[in-house]
C-alpha cells in the first residue's frame, strides 16, 4: 500500500505494508541509513527519530500510524537549534567511539534540549536512559548535554 510521508521536510511516497516499522522504511526504502537498528523492541533507542518534534522509536512505529506528521531524522536534525547544539557538543567533547548508537543519542538529546534548555541530571537520566551505548560513552554524553545547554543558538557545526 502507498503512503505519503513527510521526511525531513520532503514528501516521500513509499509502497509497503502498513505494519512495516518506520525504521525499515527510512533505512531500506528511502535509503537514509543514519537511523540505526539496535533491538527492534524499543529498548535501545538506536532508531530514535522525531515525529512532530517528539522522540519516537521508529522500530516500533508502524508506517501507517505516521500519517502526515513531520518525521525528522539524524540527517536533518542540524536544522533545529537543539539538534545543531547537540552535534557541536558531541564533536567538541569527543563523545563518540564506535558511533553506532550516537544518531539515536543525539536525537534523544535534541528533543530533551528543545523541551528543557537547561536540563538537570534527573532530566538527563529520564530522557536518555532509553538509549543504550555499549562503548560506554555515558559520562561524556551527560557532559555534552550540559555543554550543549550553554552553547548559544548560533552554534556552527564542525567539519
Amino acid at each position: 500500500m502507498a503512503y505519503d510521508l513527510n521526511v525531513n521536510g520532503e514528501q516521500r511516497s513509499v509502497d509497503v505494508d502498513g505494519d512495516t516499522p518506520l525504521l525499515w522504511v527510512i533505512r531500506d526504502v528511502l535509503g537514509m541509513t543514519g537511523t540505526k537498528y539496535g533491538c527492534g523492541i524499543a529498548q535501545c533507542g538506536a532508531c530514535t527519530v522525531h515525529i512532530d518534534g517528539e522522540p519516537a522509536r521508529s522500530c516500533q512505529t508502524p508506517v501507517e500510524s505516521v500519517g502526515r506528521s513531520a518525521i525528522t531524522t539524524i540527517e536533518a536534525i542540524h536544522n533545529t537549534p537543539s539538534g545543531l547544539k547537540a552535534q557541536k557538543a558531541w564533536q567538541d567533547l569527543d563523545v563518540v567511539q564506535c558511533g553506532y548508537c550516537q544518531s539515536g543519542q543525539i536525537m534523544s538529546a535534541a528533543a530533551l534540549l528543545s523541551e528543557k534548555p537547561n536540563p538537570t541530571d534527573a532530566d538527563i537520566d529520564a530522557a536518555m536512559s532509553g538509549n543504550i551505548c555499549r562503548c560506554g560513552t555515558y559520562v561524556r554524553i551527560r557532559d555534552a548535554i550540559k555543554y550543549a545547554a550553554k552553547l548559544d543558538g548560533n552554534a556552527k557545526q564542525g567539519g
Partner: protein
Amino acid sequence: MYMKDFSSEVSSVDTRLSRRSFLRAGVAAGGGLLISINAPMFRAAAADASAANFAPSAFIRIDKTGHVTAVIPQVEIGQGVYTSMPMLIAEELEVEPSQILVEHAPPDDKLYANPKLGFQATGGSTSIAAFYEPFRQAGAVARAMLIAAAAETWGVDASGCRAENGTVIHDASNRSLTYGDLAAKAAALPVPDKVALKDPKDFRIIGRSLKRRDSVDKTTGRTQYSIDFIIPGMKIAVAQASPIIGGKLVGMDERAALTVSAVRKVVRFDDTVAVIADHTGAARKGLAALNPKWEGGAATYSTADLVGDLDKAIAGNAVVATNEGDVKNAVSIAAKTLEARYEAPLLAHATMEPMTCAARITADGCDIWVGTQVIARVQSAVAAVTGFPAEKVRVHNFLMGGAFGRRLETDYAVQAAMIARQVDFPVKVIWTREEDFRHDAFRPHYVDKLSAGPDANGIPTAFSHRVAASSVMARWAPAWFVNGLDPDAVDGAAGPYKFRNQLIEYSRSEPRAGMMTGWWRGVGVTHNSFTVESFVDEMAAAAGKDPVDFRRLLLAQSPRAKAVLDLAAEKAGWGTPMPAGRGRGISVILLFGTYVAQVAEVSVDARGDVRLDRVVCAVDCGRVVNPDGAKAQIEGGIIFGASAALYNAIDIEKGRIVQTNFDTYRVMRIDEAPTIEVYFVDSDQPPTGTGEPGTAAIAGAIGNAVSAAIGKRLRKLPVGRGAINASESRQPYQRL
C-alpha cells in the same frame, strides 16, 4: 583477545635488525615516496628481513602534491586508532596528524600481520604497542630522505636543513621546498642506515590530546557501517539458525512466507533458514510467517548441566600452567588454609550493530562487505566455503558498530556467503538482535578453585588456582593451545602478584556442540580479576589487614603495580569512612603490559540491588600517546565491564539461550552509570594498550565493594542484584 607477552622477544629481534632492513623506500604509484614498514615480528623467522622475505606490515605514501597517506592494517572499532596511529608518524615526519589520510589495508595475513600477533588482527590492545616504534621510525626515515633530497637540490649540506610542517627549510639561504616537491627525488635516494628518533622531551604531538577524526560523520549519521551498505539490486536477508543448540530445521511454511509482500525467496540449510526480501521489514515479517520448526540438538541442556560439567572437570585432571616452589608442602606448614570456589557466567558481546554481512557471488568471485577485526581470516573462511581461491574473495571492511571480540569470528560472513551462493543478486544478511544473542561467541563460563596458605602474619606463602572453562584458544588459535593448556584462561590467575610457592592449573570443559565461546573484551583477565582480587580480599580479611595495605605487602617487588595501587587509593580517599549500605573495593591487574588499579564505590539497598556510584582508576600504560583517547577507552571499558559484573549472565534452558534482547539482558544505562575518574601514571616506558585493561579490572573492584557493603563475601558473578537476598537474584530481569 589473548596475547602472550612477546615483548622480550620483540626487543631481541629489534637489536639484530638494522634499521635499513626494517624499512624500504621506493617510488609510489603515480610518483612520490613510498615507505614500506616491516615491523619486527616476535617470531624469529619473520625477523629475517632479507630481500626475499621483506614483508611490510604498513605503508606510508607521500605523493607529488604532498599528501601523506598511511595504509594501516588495524581497523577502527571505536577505539580511536585512526586518530592515534597517524600521530606516531606525524611526530617524526613533521606534519600535522590531520594531514595524514588513513587507508585501511586490504586482507593479507603476510603483508599486514600485526607485529605482536603474527597475523592480521585488531585485538589484544596491541595497535599502539605494536606500531609505536615502527611508525616513528618510518616517519623519521621519510623525513631524512626528504631533507636529503632538498639538500641535493640546493647543493647544500643536509645538516643545514630542517623539516617543519610538510616543508624542508634551508635557513641560511631562506629557501624551502614542500614534501610534494621533493617526494619523487627522495624516492630515488638510498635509505639512510640510521636515523635518530626524537628525544621524547621534544615530542609535540605524542602526548597531546587529539580530537577523533571520525566525530563529525558519526554525529551526523553519515558514517557507513556494513549494515548501511547498499548497491543497486541488493536484497535483504533475515537469517535464523537453530534456536536449539545444535538443532536442525524440520519444517517451515514457505508458502506463507512468500505471500508476504516484498518477500522474494526463502533459502534453507540443515540448521539455518533465511528469508530474502526487498527490505528488512518484509524479511522479518516473512520469517515470522515462515515459522520454522526445529528439533534435535541439546534439547534438554541447561546452565546447570554446563556448570555440572565444569565442576566435574575441575575435580578431575588439570594441566599445570605454573608450578613454582612447593605449594603442597607450603600449605601443609601454613598457619591456616583458605579455600574458595568462584564462578563467572557466560556473557554476550551485544555490539550495538548486530552481526551483518553483505555478499555477492558471481562466476568471477565473491565480494564481502563486512565489519571485521580479522579481514584476512574472513577472506580464507569464505574462500573455503565458496571454493574460490583467496584472491577471488574481495573483502571490503567497514567501520564497526562495536566489536569487543565478537568480530574476531567469521561465522556471520561465512553464512552470508552461503546465502549469496543461492541467489543471483547481492544480498545483505542482517541478524536480528535475538539472533545476535542466540548465536554469539559467548565469553566462557568459568569455575575456579583457589587456596592459600598464609603464614602467621597472614602473608600467603602458598597460592593455588585451578581454572575450569572451555578453551577459546583451542578453537581460535590451536597453535597457541599447547599440551592442553589454554594460556588465556589462566592469564592473570595469580593477579599481578608473585607468591613464593604457586600452582596454576587449567581444566578444560566444552559446552555442547552447536555453541561457541569466544574472545570478550578484557579476555581471561576479566574473570581472573574478579576471582583473584576477591580472594586476595579474603586473605586480607583473614590476616586482619586492610585490603590496600595487604596488597602493598604482596606487591613489594612490583613497583609499577604498587604505584597504580597507591595512586588509585589516594585519589579515591581510601580509608575514609563509608556510610552504612555503602562499600568500597579495590582491584589491581596487569593485562597486555598495562597496569590498572580501580576503586569502586557502591550503594546496596535493602533488597540487595547495587548501584555503582563512583570508579577511580589509575593506569600505567607507559607513555600515553593520545591522552583523551586513552581516557575514553578506560571510561568506556569500565562501563562495559561494570555492566557485566553487575547484571549479566547468559542462561541456557532446554537447549535455548534465555536472554535474547535488551529487555532480558540488562546493560548499563546512563542513569546507572557511575562517575569515573581516570589518572595516568607519568611514564617514559613504551606504550601499551588501553582498550581492554579498563574492562578487565572492574569486576574485582565491584565484587569487593559489594562484599564490603553487605559484610558478606560474594563469589559468583553477577553481583548487582539480590546481593543480600539470594532469592531476589533468581527473579529474571524484565524491562518493560
